[in-house]
């Protein structure tokens, strides 16, 4: 357990750095989470984060890598929905890291 300080708010994180309360998410929180991972969020990142939140809204779970790629390809096209693109954006662990930055629970079917 640790806390993330965003502005004057203190936001609870679990031991892996995921939000404890999914309602705490905001763009500022995403930026602060990304900073902890040494990532500066670009429009390419944001569209994946928005997509993940949409995935969670639809299926009520966080995708593992394969469904993340499939869903991204379906919604944004094959140029974005492939592992090199997603790996580049999210330090080689897109399912885990993108879920974290999007404020979703840790994917359960992920190694």
């Amino acid at each position, binding site marked *: 357990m640790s806390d993330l300080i965003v502005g004057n708010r203190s936001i609870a994180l679990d031991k892996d750095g995921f939000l404890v309360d999914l309602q705490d998410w905001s763009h500022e929180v995403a930026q602060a989470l990304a900073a902890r991972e040494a990532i500066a969020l670009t429009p390419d990142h944001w569209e994946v984060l928005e997509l993940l939140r949409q*995935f969670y809204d*639809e*299926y*009520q*779970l966080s*995708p*593992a*890598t*394969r*469904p993340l790629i*499939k*869903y991204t390809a379906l919604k944004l096209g094959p140029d974005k929905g492939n592992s090199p693109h997603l790996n580049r954006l999210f330090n080689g662990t897109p399912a885990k890291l993108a879920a974290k930055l999007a404020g979703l629970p840790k994917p*359960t*079917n*992920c190694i």
Partner: protein
Amino acid sequence: MASSLLIISRQAPWNGPSAREALDIALAGGAFDLPLGMLFLDDGVFQLASGQQPALLQQKNLAANLQALPMFGVEELFACAHSLQQRGLDGSTLELPVQVLDDAALRALIARFDQVVTL
């Protein structure tokens, strides 16, 4: 080629952990690219009923989770016609795009897979 596995889910959505466990096997196997099928049998077909409101029972939305199966690569989805009919469910109004099979087709289905587990 990995062995194919048919998961038969035959418990109602919140009757203990069975329905959730069957789904977890399917999602985990799908994430690893295993050739999987999932069959809803007996009370398992209640998992597919439309308009469920699990939050009223402080339960997670299993029907929403089930819809992720094709995204996880599990596209062979089946339901037992007899079980649906017995329970007054209409195969065309289900939450998931399943193939509704009669008993003879179900026997052929079970024969086709390398492994079968019933939860």
